[in-house]
């Protein structure tokens, strides 16, 4: 895959220019740029990349983007610039799994798929990649790894708790980006099939139970780690935790747990000062 390493490195910055107008769009195009360079050597080389690519497509490429790209300007052939303009349009998905869409959309461009199909592909991937990433990473893998880190802190593992958390988390994180970019590039317009990959489905099946067990084990262990002065304080801490959880639940929809906790702590500090 030409430009793989550069595209992979750029994927780590996919949210750097996040805006409410285009979401990840700018970062998406930035990451896809090294892959789209295949279109940049002029119509002859682009045509070699796939059927219908290059100059033949430029005339109608992507509406306004295609029209504006008619002038090659100082940095890039028309096909390259039209493709880049399309890829910078609105896109939203989980940042790690966006690699799959970057690879697929770039491959579709280089293979000379019609611009409308490329745009439909990007649009179609938005929902599934977002939902998959939220379930797999934000609600599964991240809490699981954080819980393992906390458990290790409770077991006095010190620096190894941090190392274990970072290594464990990033093994899946980096694998997802590498796999996504490769799989997307390999699949092109037919990338939807990659989402049904057995490895991904198996991960989805196991991640929630693993995270639930890890989080369930980590939370009580904090009571054993925290340097309470006496055992009755541990019981009081557990009781306060249940009370606070109830408060957070009561304020659900009106205030986040963070705001409720800050409020409770501020009140306790007030009581402690006025005692």
């Amino acid at each position, binding site marked *: 895959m030409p430009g793989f390493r550069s595209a992979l490195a750029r994927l780590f910055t996919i*949210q*750097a*220019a*996040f805006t409410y107008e285009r*979401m990840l769009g700018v970062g998406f*195009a930035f990451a896809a740029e090294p892959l789209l360079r295949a279109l940049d050597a002029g119509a002859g080389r682009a045509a070699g990349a796939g059927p219908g690519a290059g100059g033949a497509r430029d005339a109608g490429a992507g509406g306004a983007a295609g029209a*504006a790209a008619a002038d090659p300007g100082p*940095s890039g052939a028309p096909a*390259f*610039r039209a493709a*880049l303009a399309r890829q*910078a349009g609105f896109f*939203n998905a989980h*940042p*790690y799994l966006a690699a799959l869409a970057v690879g697929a959309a770039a491959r579709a461009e280089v293979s000379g798929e019609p611009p409308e199909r490329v745009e439909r592909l990007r649009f179609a991937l938005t929902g599934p990649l977002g939902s998959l990433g939220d379930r797999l990473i*934000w*609600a599964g893998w991240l809490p699981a790894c*954080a819980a393992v*880190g*906390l458990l290790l802190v409770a*077991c006095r593992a*010190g*620096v190894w*708790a941090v190392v274990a*958390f970072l290594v464990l*988390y990033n093994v899946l*994180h980096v694998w997802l980006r590498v796999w996504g970019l490769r799989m997307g590039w390999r699949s092109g317009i037919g990338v939807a099939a990659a989402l049904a990959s057995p490895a991904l489905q198996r991960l989805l099946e196991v991640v*929630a139970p693993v995270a*639930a*067990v890890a*989080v*369930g*084990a980590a*939370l*009580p262990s*904090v*009571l*054993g*780690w925290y340097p309470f002065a006496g*055992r009755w*304080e*541990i019981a*009081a801490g*557990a009781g*306060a*935790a249940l*009370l*606070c*959880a109830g408060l957070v*639940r009561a304020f659900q929809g009106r205030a986040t*747990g*963070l705001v409720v*906790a800050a409020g*409770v*702590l*501020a009140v306790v500090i007030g*009581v*402690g*000062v006025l*005692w």
Partner: protein
Amino acid sequence: MSAATLLGVLAVGTVAGLDLVSVPQMMLARPLVAGFLGGAVAGRPLAGLGVGALLELFAFETLPIGAARYPDWGPAAAAAGALGARHGAAWDPVWLAGVTVVALVAAWLGGLTMHVVRRLNGAQLRRREADLVAGDPRALRALQAGGVLRDAVRAAVLTAFTYFAGGQVARQVRIAWHAPRALADVAVVGTALGVALWSAFRLYGRGAPRRWLAAGAVAGVAVVAGLLAW
């Protein structure tokens, strides 16, 4: 604290703030890591880790999903970890309560300032709209660089705020505190654990994961018993 250490704390907080969204999203922004790094820069990594672990419990609630506004724990945890290291080996719950309140406010402000950064990114995007429509790669690079720069400034300011305000508040609270210290102990752990408990229940408290959560909790209680016996 020396100027070099202060610069180090600012650097760690800035990296942690950038990590959340801009680059590289490797979870350096989690309190467990940022707190540890803040403590390490200030000379006592394990003291920073202790503060970070406590803030990590609050962060269980945070699901950094897309355009939603969520707290930014990195700069707050880095500064709080450094304050933990500066405070020394003695674990003072009253002092910790003051630092935690400021860290919570800073994390909340982190979400708010991220919204501002995204608006500013949008303004720059509108200025470069013509270049983007023309497919100019230089416009993409400028927008990416602008986004990273704005986010870095945001993270550095948040780190400085947490460090200076947290130190001041904690000092004042410790001077003015008259209640038994156990009250601060119970409040700090109770609020952190309470937020984490509710977050765990919200994520895994329904359907099949519920029994896994319960099984984990039983194992966790066994760990507590083991730790207390040890």
